[in-house]
């Protein structure tokens, strides 16, 4: 269950950004998780639910954008369908994962006092 340590890194990052900007509360986090990243979205959401208590993210919603895995030939850019041999049948070079490895923090919506 490395999702807990991912959430820990996430919350620490948010707290650092909040401290930098002098923010009082966090409303929403948006992360992108690739299908081939090794992170399970459901487990991440569960871990977040447990870990956010008594942190700055306590009331912040976590929205997770899933990213589908995509294999491509690095030379002719042809799609290599999932489940097939990861080698371009035309160019005979190893395929490249062009999307789906993301464990990414996109944006934080934070509250600043209106003065």
């Amino acid at each position, binding site marked *: *269950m*490395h999702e807990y*340590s*991912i959430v820990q*890194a*996430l919350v*620490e*990052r948010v707290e650092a*950004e909040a401290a930098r*900007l002098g*923010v*009082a*509360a966090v*409303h929403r986090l948006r*992360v992108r998780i690739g299908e*081939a*990243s*090794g*992170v399970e979205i459901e487990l991440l959401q569960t871990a977040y639910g447990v870990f956010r208590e008594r942190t700055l993210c306590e009331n912040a919603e976590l929205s997770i954008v899933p990213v589908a895995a995509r*294999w491509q030939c690095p030379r002719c850019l042809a799609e290599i369908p999932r*489940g*097939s*041999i*990861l*080698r371009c049948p035309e160019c005979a070079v*190893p*395929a*490249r*994962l062009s999307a789906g490895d993301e*464990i*990414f*923090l*996109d*944006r*934080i*919506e*934070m*509250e*600043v*006092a*209106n003065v």
Partner: protein
Amino acid sequence: MCETRGRGEPDVLPVEVQDRILSGNDRTARHNREHFAEKGLLAINLMGSPGAGKTAVLEATARALKGRLRLGALAGDLETDRDAQRLMRAGIPSLSITTGSACHLDAELVHRALHGFPAADLDVLFIENVGNLVCPAVYDLGQAANVVALSVTEGEDKPAKYPVMFRKADLVLLTKTDLLPHLPEIRLETIEDALSRVMPSPRLIPFSARTGAGLEAWLEWLEARQSAALRPAASPVTA
């Protein structure tokens, strides 16, 4: 970029971060990698299920090398330092990293261990990760290569079930091949086929720590990687 929500209402400030959540780990991993490069030390992240034979691979490697390369190891485990003890008995200076409840090593754990470990006189540092086919694959430690030990008794479907670890592997050691005569249903070609669907440049060495099968091919791979690690970082290594 503030969206004003009216007088007295708080402003919600969207901050675009666009960064890897594990960027802190990545930074420490880069630091470890620079440290290994400066020392001309080849760092190998050895991963695999509990019981796949990771420690046995290292014991057999030490026996076969007979000092040709100076080996060291950091052994990650949830509890006990038994692996490190076994490796010490095999003549590999080793340090145990006890993770407590963590299912994987991270760059910081490796960094801390390096501070108490005399890695300066070594050629190859094995980082034997916690036995687990999922979590260790997510964390960069600063290694030059990932090696996954997959034992023949684990079944042919492991690459398909745990694609992330195998995708990131530079080499798969198919261990315990001495048991193959007892496992008529396990076919090497099926494992090779499964690997080629998750690993873009599949490289598999059938290996037995007991009989020594595959040892030569493994040592050849290791020595080639080790001489690549000695080249100055300025000259890019092409595959």
